[in-house]
C-alpha cells in the first residue's frame, strides 16, 4: 500500500488557494477597489452592488446547471424579456400582480421545457436549439408588445416589493439571490437530480449506461433555466416599473461569464453555485467600481471582457 502522509500547513493553504481561485479574486478585487475609492466600501454602495448582481446572478444559477450538464442556454435574455412581458400583459388586463408573476414564472418554465424537448427528444445541439429560442422569443416579445414598453404597475402588491422592496434594510432582490443561492447549492450538492446533472455533463454515455434518464433530466435542466430567467424578469420589471421588449439583450453572455469566472467548465461536469455567485459579484463590482472611479462605459466593457479571459486562464493553470 502507498503511504498516505498528512499534508503540511503550506500544502493545505496552497490546495485551498487552488480550489478557491474565484473567491480569492473577489477578495483581492474588493481590497483594490476599497483602496482606490473610499465610497466603494460604504454599506449603501455594497448593497447597491449586490442588487446589481442579483439579476445576472439569478439567471446564472440556472445557467450553472445547464453548463454543468454539458449544455449552454443562449435563450435566457430573450426568455427574460418574454416572461416580463407576459407578467406586464396580465397586469394590464387587471389580474392581481401575484398571479401575474406566477403566470410569468410558468411561461418561463414552459419555454425552457420546449427548448429542453428540442434538445433531448429532437437531438438538437443545445447551442442551436437555444440560439433559435433566443431569436424567436425576442420576436414573440416584440409581437406581443407591439414593440412598445408597458409601464406603471403601481406601488402596491408583490410587483412593487419584489424589485423595489426591502427585508429590514436588505433589498428584496438581494434576499431572493441568497435564498436561491442556498437552494441551488443544496440541489447540486445534496440531491439525486444534482448528481444526475454532474453525471450527464461528466460522461453522457456513462450516465446513460448507469440507468440515468438523460432525456428527462435535460428537459428539467432547461426548464429550471427558463424559470430562473422569468424570476429575474419579474424583479427587473418591478425595479424599472416597466416591461421593455428589448430587455435582457446580452444577458446570456453575462450569465455565461459569471458561471465561467466561477470555475465551471464549458465542457461539462464541473461547476458550483458558490463559484457562480462570486462570478456575478465580480462582474458587478468591476462595473460599479469603474463607475465610482469615473471610467467611461466603453472601457468598462473592455475590462470586463479581459477579466473573463484572465479568470479562465488562472483557473486552468492550477
Amino acid at each position, binding site marked *: 500500500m502507498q503511504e498516505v502522509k498528512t499534508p503540511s500547513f503550506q500544502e493545505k493553504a496552497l490546495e485551498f488557494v487552488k480550489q478557491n481561485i474565484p473567491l480569492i479574486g473577489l477578495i483581492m478585487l474588493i481590497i483594490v477597489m476599497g483602496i482606490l475609492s473610499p465610497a466603494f466600501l460604504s454599506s449603501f454602495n455594497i448593497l447597491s452592488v449586490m442588487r446589481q448582481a442579483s439579476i445576472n446572478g439569478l439567471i446564472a444559477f440556472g445557467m450553472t446547471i445547464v453548463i454543468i450538464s454539458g449544455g449552454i442556454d443562449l435563450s435566457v435574455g430573450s426568455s427574460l424579456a418574454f416572461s416580463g412581458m407576459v407578467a406586464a400583459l396580465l397586469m394590464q388586463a387587471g389580474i392581481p400582480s401575484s398571479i401575474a408573476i406566477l403566470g410569468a414564472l410558468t411561461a418561463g418554465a414552459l419555454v425552457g421545457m420546449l427548448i429542453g424537448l428540442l434538445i433531448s427528444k429532437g437531438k438538437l445541439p443545445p447551442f442551436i436549439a437555444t440560439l433559435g429560442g433566443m431569436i424567436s422569443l425576442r420576436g414573440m416579445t416584440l409581437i406581443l408588445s407591439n414593440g412598445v414598453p408597458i409601464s406603471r404597475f403601481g406601488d402596491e402588491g408583490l410587483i412593487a416589493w419584489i424589485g423595489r422592496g426591502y427585508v429590514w434594510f436588505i433589498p428584496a432582490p438581494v434576499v431572493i439571490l441568497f435564498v436561491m443561492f442556498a437552494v441551488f447549492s443544496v440541489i447540486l450538492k*445534496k440531491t439525486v437530480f444534482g448528481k444526475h446533472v454532474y453525471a450527464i455533463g*461528466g460522461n453522457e*454515455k456513462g450516465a446513460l*449506461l448507469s440507468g440515468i434518464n438523460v432525456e428527462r433530466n435535460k428537459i428539467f435542466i432547461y426548464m429550471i433555466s427558463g424559470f430562473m430567467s422569468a424570476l429575474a424578469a419579474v424583479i427587473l420589471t418591478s425595479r424599472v416599473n416597466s416591461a421593455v421588449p428589448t430587455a435582457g439583450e446580452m444577458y446570456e453572455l453575462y450569465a455565461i461569464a459569471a458561471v465561467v469566472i466561477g470555475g465551471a467548465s464549458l465542457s461539462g461536469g464541473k461547476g458550483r453555485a458558490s463559484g457562480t455567485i462570486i462570478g456575478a459579484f465580480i462582474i458587478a463590482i468591476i462595473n460599479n467600481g469603474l463607475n465610482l472611479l469615473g471610467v467611461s462605459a466603453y472601457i468598462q466593457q473592455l475590462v470586463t471582457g479581459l477579466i473573463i479571459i484572465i479568470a479562465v486562464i488562472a483557473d486552468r493553470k492550477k
Partner: protein
Amino acid sequence: MHLKMQSIDKFFGPVQVLTNVDFEVKPNEFHALIGENGAGKSTLVKILTGIEHQTSGDVFIDDAPVHFKNVLEAEKMGISIVNQELNLFPEMTVLENLFICKEPVKGLFIDADEERRRAAEVFKRLGINVNLDVPVKTYSVGIQQLIEIAKSLLEEAKLIILDEPTSALTNKEISQLFDVLKVLKKEGKSIVYISHRLPEIFELCDSISILRDGALVVREDIAKMNFESVIKNMVGYELGNLFPDKPTVKPGVCLMEAKSLARAGEFNDISFKLHAGEIIGFAGLIGAGRTELMNALFGVTRFDSGHLEIDGNPVEIKSVAQAKKLGLGYVTENRKEEGLFLDESITNNVLYNNLKALSQYGFVDDKKTESFVDTYTQEVQVKSHSNAQQIHQLSGGNQQKVVLAKWLATHPKILILDEPTRGIDVKSKKQIYDLIFKLKAQNYGVILVSSELVELLGVADRIYVLREGQLMKEMANQNIKDEDIMVHMMGGNTYARG
C-alpha cells in the same frame, strides 16, 4: 526497401511490452505480422511508424541505421500505414484528402491540375475508378481504404503497413483490395499485413512473424507453416495458475433464456441459456456482434425480434433503468468512454450508479454513501489513497475494479462482463478472475465476453462462438483447446470468399 529491426525492447513505465524483438521485411516481400491482442503488434508498428520510440534496439533501412522522431520522418523514408480506423477527412473531397498537407502549389495557390493528374495516374495504376470531386464519406469503407493506399503511393511509400484491413469489408471489397495488393506486389512494394484472418494470410503473404507476450516466437516462410502451427505458436502460453480452481457449483435455476434474438445489421438468431452459478463465455472476432448483443440485453438498444426470459418470465427490456431493475449489471468494453466518470472521485463513480439505494426523497445520504462505497471498493480491492481520489489518477486495473465495485453494489443477479481484463496488469487480472469465481460460488450468473481465448477457457463453463453476427457453435468447456474455438471464430477451413 529492406527493413530490419534488431533487438527491440520497449517499456511503458515499468511494464515491458516488447522484449528483444527482431523483425525483418525483405524487398518486395509481403509479410504477415500475427499475435493475440496485447502481444505487442501495435507497439511494434508504432515504433516502425515513428509514433513511439524503442527503449533500446536498432532500426535499419537498406542497412543504414534510422531513427524516426515522428510520423513525418517515417513517411519520408517511405513507410506508411493504413489503419483500422481510417485517417481520412469524411467531409473533404477525395482529391483534397489525397494531398492534405502535401498540396503541390503554383505561386500562392494549390495546383489542382497537377493534383488531378497525379491522382488519376495512381488510380489508373491500381485499376480502380474513383470520382475525385465527391466527399470521401460517399464511399464505402472498402473504397476509402483503397483511397488511403493511393494516398500512400502518392507519398512514394515503399513499405505499406495494413492493420486489419479486411475486418470491416464485404467479400466483394476484399477481392478488390487483393487485386490492388497484387498491383503493389508487381511494383516492388513491401507489405506488412496484420490480420486475425488466417486464410487471407496464406493467400497473400510470403512469410510470417508471430509475436506472443511481446516477444518474437517465430519467423518463417509461409510455405513451411499451416493453419494449426500458426495458431499453436500464437497462443502457446502456459495456463499456469493465473486461473484459480473453478469452484464446484452445480448450475441452478435458469436465470436468463434467449431465443432467436436478432437486430438488423448486428446479430441474428442468437439463442442461449444462463443458469445461476454459471459463467458463460462469448467468443468471436472484433465485429462478430458480441458487444452489440450485450448492449441490446442491457436495454441500450432494442431487439428487432426474438424472445427473452428472465427468471422464467418473458421480458422486453426497454431501458437501462429497467435492465438494472431486472437484476442485470453491465461492465462495458470501454471503461474510459462508457464505464467511468474520469474526472470524478471513486465515491461519485460508485454513487452515480446507485443513487436509488443511497437517497431518500430525492436527497443523497452522504454518510451512508461513504460506508457503502467503502464496502464495495474493499470487496474488489481497489488500491487508492482514499475514495476521494479522482479516477484518472488510478491505474487501468484499479479503474476496472471501480467499475466492478459500482456494479456489484447494485446486487445484480446477472453480471455481463465485456472484455473485463483488457489492458490491465496480470495481478489485477488474477484478482478479477478470483472475483468472478467468487460470484459464481454465490450463485450469480455471469456472461463473459472476451477476445482472449485463454481467459474464456480458464473461466467459462460454456462457450458460445459468434461470427459475423451468427451463433456458430455452443460448446461445454471440457477438454477443448483454443484451436477448437478459433476455428469457429475465423470460419476455419470452411472459409470461402465470394
